[in-house]
């Protein structure tokens, strides 16, 4: 005999259920619709291999960081320092390799440690002070924005660090982070594999490990999670280190690929990662989302970035497009969240 019987599926509607269980579904539909739209608007040019190669090449740096930012968002926090961290990682690698004559692999390791340290700083400040991560990482953002250029000028006399390809270890590092498959314009970077692999691993962690459960629990109900013994603070700090690590990866990949680093790069990109995560179905309030969603969110940016000029429009519309998309996605997330809340109290 059952003491408690189920009244159908609660009071939630089926689409709310789907939105909660598969938050990335909306972005997948949007990506397919957009690709179809731009294919028609560009009379098929959108689906040619060189165009798709451009789409993916635009999307991957956003994608890698957006996946990390998405996980952090699920845990209920933001990181505004990810964009400049890309510049920090590149500048560190560049200065160490060109000015100090360090082997690139050593520079790679040291720059990683410094970036992880910065992520640790963000995380610890957030959990110790209890201040909104928005504010704390905004502080880090300004700090790094200044430091990137100032230190680069101090060591190299310029905000542009060049000739990274002359450093020892360049060829082997290039093979790993910047190899090209195919010939231009139908060329694909090995970065895409890194992006895909990272997304898969993040998905696995989120859905199939206890750390994933902690991430959801931390963002879903922090006090509840703490009460049952979830290491809430550790989870958050770890995720701030992850976003810093993702930014580092993109920073050093680009440094090796272009053999030069603009120390001021990355400013403003932090918003794109957050937008990609939101468009991919991660709730700004935490507790819901996926790793594949932010990756799709970044892909949508790639499609729009390449598609808008292909459709014959002024490329400045990209920004407006992304703004509208953010609003729509946030609205949908908000509606789902409201449904969840009302179903909860009802």
């Amino acid at each position, binding site marked *: 005999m059952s*003491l*408690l019987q189920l009244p159908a599926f609660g009071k939630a509607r089926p689409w709310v259920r789907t939105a909660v269980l598969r938050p990335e579904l909306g972005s997948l539909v949007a990506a397919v619709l957009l690709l179809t739209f731009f294919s028609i608007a560009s009379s098929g040019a959108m689906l040619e291999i060189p165009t798709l190669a451009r789409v993916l090449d635009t999307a991957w740096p956003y994608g890698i960081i957006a996946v990390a930012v998405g996980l952090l968002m699920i845990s209920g926090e933001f990181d505004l320092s990810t964009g400049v961290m890309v510049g920090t990682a590149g500048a560190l690698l560049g200065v160490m390799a060109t000015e100090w004559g360090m082997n690139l692999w050593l520079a790679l390791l040291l720059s990683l440690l410094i970036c992880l340290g910065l992520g640790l700083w963000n995380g610890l400040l957030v959990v110790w002070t209890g201040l909104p991560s928005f504010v704390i990482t905004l502080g880090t953002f300004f700090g790094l924005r200044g430091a990137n250029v100032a230190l680069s000028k101090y060591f190299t006399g310029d905000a542009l660090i060049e000739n990274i390809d002359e450093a020892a270890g360049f060829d082997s590092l290039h093979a790993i982070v910047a190899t090209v498959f195919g010939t231009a314009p139908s060329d694909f970077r090995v970065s895409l594999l890194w992006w895909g692999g990272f997304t898969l691993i993040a998905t696995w962690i989120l859905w199939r*490990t*206890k750390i994933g*459960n902690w991430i959801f*629990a931390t963002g879903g109900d922090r006090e509840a999670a703490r009460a049952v013994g979830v290491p809430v603070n550790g989870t958050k700090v770890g995720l701030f280190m992850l976003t810093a690590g993702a930014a580092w990866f993109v920073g050093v990949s680009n440094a090796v690929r272009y053999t030069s680093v603009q120390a001021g790069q990355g400013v403003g990109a932090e918003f794109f990662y957050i937008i990609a995560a939101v468009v991919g179905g991660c709730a700004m309030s935490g507790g819901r989302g996926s790793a594949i969603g932010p990756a799709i969110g970044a892909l949508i940016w790639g499609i729009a970035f390449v598609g808008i000029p292909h459709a014959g429009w002024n490329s400045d519309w990209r920004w407006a497009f992304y703004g509208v998309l953010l609003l729509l996605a946030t609205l949908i997330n908000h509606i789902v969240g409201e449904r969840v809340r009302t179903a909860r109290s009802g």
Partner: protein
Amino acid sequence: MTTEQVSAAESDSSAVAEQASDVPVLEVRGLGRQFGSVVALQDVDVALRAGEVTCVVGDNGAGKSVFIKMLCGLIRPSEGEILLDGRVTEFASPRQARSQGIVAVYQDLALAPMMSLWRNFFMGGEPVKGWGIFQRFDVGYAKEAMQRELEKLGVNLGDPDRAAHTLSGGERQGLAIARAMYYGARVLILDEPTSALGVRQSGAVLRLIRRAAQRGTAVVLVTPKPQHAFWVGDRFLVFQRGRLIEDRRSETLTLESLSYLMAGGGEVDELETAIATA
């Protein structure tokens, strides 16, 4: 419900539970707590036994919540001692109390709304399999173990993948109680679990509480409703202005006398005279 039914339910309980009831699982001696100059609770002596449902009743502000919060480590006592299995202990945190088998189920239940039932059930205690970096959340086991535990209590919540926010208040209590039982709760503490529930769901939750006691758990229940307390309780602790004024077994009470005690005992008489003479 009658005392015969309650004692009939008790006689179903396992031999283990009956033996264990000789030694109190949890005992407090001279327990008291002040907040500044406010004496929230003073001089309370109680022994909780396995397989018993102890109802904590009393007026608003009588000290019921402070009492149970001290039992589960949320508040530190300012006087007196707590004994677990006859040995003096101190709980520095709810987590530590929980690790010793003292689990509190709060009214605003510890569930993350967007997470599935099984994810919630194992929150903070995820079963894993595999080794090293391949170690993973054993999802198959989690779903199965949750269903097994729910079945033992006779709770059917349907699809384990549904999100927790779709549960009704009673179902949420059911999940929380099952979770506490899964983690081997020896003392289960509930603060007004039926306060937000309708009649049917209240009945279901009270039966769950009864079952938990039958399985040898010492249950402490705060409820302002005499009917609920009377149906489920073996024993009643009546608090008034921070003191334990009555400690009665269910055999010595009727629903009327319990309602009278719960409404504040002598104060009811005072109130009646006050109204009559006004």
